[in-house]
């Protein structure tokens, strides 16, 4: 089978939100000496289309989530098959749900979508203190800090994070993007965030725009 066809199978599996199928197709392609980066590109293209379809209400959230899972699985496989550091040119995002908030479904989806869009996503989980966000970002020399909050009682943590960065003279080192159910564009503006993503697709768009990556 041609490399093109093998790579196309990976894209199709993502479009069919078929995690096992995607991993199998990726394994097949790589074992037949297809370029792993091309495999990753195909998967990324698939997840990008799924993001657009979700945005247009053509598919439902479970389909997008399953596709995102498939994407993450393919990426893991590709990484294992590349020399270390080969993907290091990627923009890095430290991403998590703020302290006090256990809601992470949206964050997980955005995380997978960002991976699909070519970012190196460091998902630090949920209920994450401000200090941990900053430490991790420093350690990884991240480009973006992504902070999710679902509840009005926790969204203030997003403001605190930005204040803390200002206090420690690190505000310019990182772009800060916020999102989550209770947050708004106005809130993002008020607390001085660099951007706001309403849903998964918007989050990816704003992340790309913020670091000057073309979609």
């Amino acid at each position, binding site marked *: 089978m041609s490399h093109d066809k093998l790579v196309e199978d990976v894209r199709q599996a993502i479009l069919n*939100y078929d995690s096992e199928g995607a991993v199998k197709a990726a394994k097949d392609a790589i074992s037949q000496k297809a370029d792993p980066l091309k495999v990753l590109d195909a998967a990324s293209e698939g997840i990008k289309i799924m993001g657009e379809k979700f945005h247009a209400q053509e598919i*439902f*959230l*479970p*389909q997008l*989530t*399953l596709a*995102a*899972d498939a994407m993450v699985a393919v990426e893991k496989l590709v990484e294992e098959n590349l020399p270390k550091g080969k993907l290091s040119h990627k923009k890095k995002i430290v991403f998590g749900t703020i302290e006090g908030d*256990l809601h992470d*479904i949206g964050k*997980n*989806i955005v995380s997978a979508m960002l991976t699909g869009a070519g970012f190196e996503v460091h998902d630090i989980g949920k209920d994450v203190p401000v200090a941990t966000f900053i430490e991790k970002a420093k350690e990884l020399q991240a480009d973006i800090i992504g902070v999710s909050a679902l509840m009005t009682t926790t969204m203030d943590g997003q403001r605190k994070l930005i204040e803390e960065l200002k206090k420690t003279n690190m505000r310019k080192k990182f772009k800060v993007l916020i999102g989550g159910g209770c947050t*708004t*564009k106005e809130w993002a503006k008020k607390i001085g965030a660099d951007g706001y993503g*309403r849903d998964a697709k918007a989050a990816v768009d704003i992340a790309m725009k913020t670091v000057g990556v073309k979609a």
Partner: protein
Amino acid sequence: MKPKRIEVLDENEIDQIHHATLTVLEKTGINVNEEQARNILRKNGATVDDAKKRVWIPRSLLEDNVKKAPSEFIMHARDPKLNLKIDLDTTYLEPMVGRLNILDASTGKRRRTTLKDLEHLMKVANAMPNFHLLHSGAMMPHIEGIQDSVAHVHGYFTAIKNAQKVVKGTGRGTSKAEDCMRMAAVLAGGKEELRKNAWVFTTCNTISPLQLDKPQVEGIIVYARYGQPVDITAEVQSGGTAPVTLAGALVVQNCEVLTGILIAQLVNPGTPVFYGTCGGIMDMRMADISLGCVESGLINIASAQLAHHYKIPCRGTAATTESKALDMQAGYDKALTLMMAAQGGVNTIFYPGVMDHALTISLESYVIDNEIAGMVFRALRGIEVDEEHLAVDIINKVGPIGHFLNQKHTMQYLLKEHYMPTISDRRLREDWEKDGSKELKDVAKERVQKILKEHTPMELDKDKEKELRAIIKEVEKREKV
């Protein structure tokens, strides 16, 4: 389990209404303003006073013959996939189509309904997944721009041409009913074929209290002779044309409907009929009928119980409103009455699409009522419980803190378990604002335009179309158009 039906009468109460009905029909009798029917009734044992047009019906005559009406029958559609099995268990929706007025979405005002409007109405009704059998322009006494005496053939033809679902004809007078039989026979493949299967149906409305009018009874007779279904429907207005007590209104309704059913069964035993209600109240603040009222919901439920007591399918009236605009009143009137009728087990629910005392039809209301119906049909399916639906394996797999979005089980059952709205807005405010802050009526208007542009009804067989057009020409000639 499938949810239990709502009941508003117990067995004893049904029995009381039945016996009250027999008493009224024996003691006071009922007016039947049509001679053939009176003769048939007299021949079978009823006492008749022709001068008064009054008929007194012995209880055994009524009970023995109402039994002959079938509990199940098939109604044929131009598209055989859309044939309907009518029985006591299933619920179908029949939108209103032919009304004197239509709400013009471009002006928000009402105007007279034209043949072009009827074409659009049939097309959109044809495209609505939750509408099953369709009313038509055949029933309209007046279509703007058409001579009244031929409105029925134009209305019926427009309906057949623009929809492939089961379509209603007219039974308003012998001649009009016969014209419809000729046209339905074209669909069936001849009059003999028509007699074997139901291809057209109609409504016979009684005139409350206790009166069956001549053209309507003529319709019953013609349809019965051809074995075509008739819904015999009383339109009692509690407080005005029937007692203000709903139980009393049900007695008046029962007298009228059972008399109509009796006539149909005497003309042709086994004629498929619906026990029909279009019962509501007279609003005593202005002496106008109200159908979009909670009492109508109750009357629908009671009617389903009475119909099923006689083992006859029930035709009800719901998803209607007295509101003049597609506003919140229209929404709650329609949703409330439809949910009640459906949960009461009414088998065909007539009237979606209508508003304004049933004087005005609205294309936009079709897509709104179709949405309400989608939710109602979801409610009727209830909650299924078995191993797959309990999903214990999936719950154990996901465990605490996780989520179910990426489980195959979620996608597998999503569209069976959740009703997916077609026009309801559930977005967050900013997305809604970005999209123009549209209200439901605006969304519905856009949807109607999209359907009119994109929906193509199944093509009518060319030879049949030719035959149908020839019948229209003949009728026009006869009526000196």
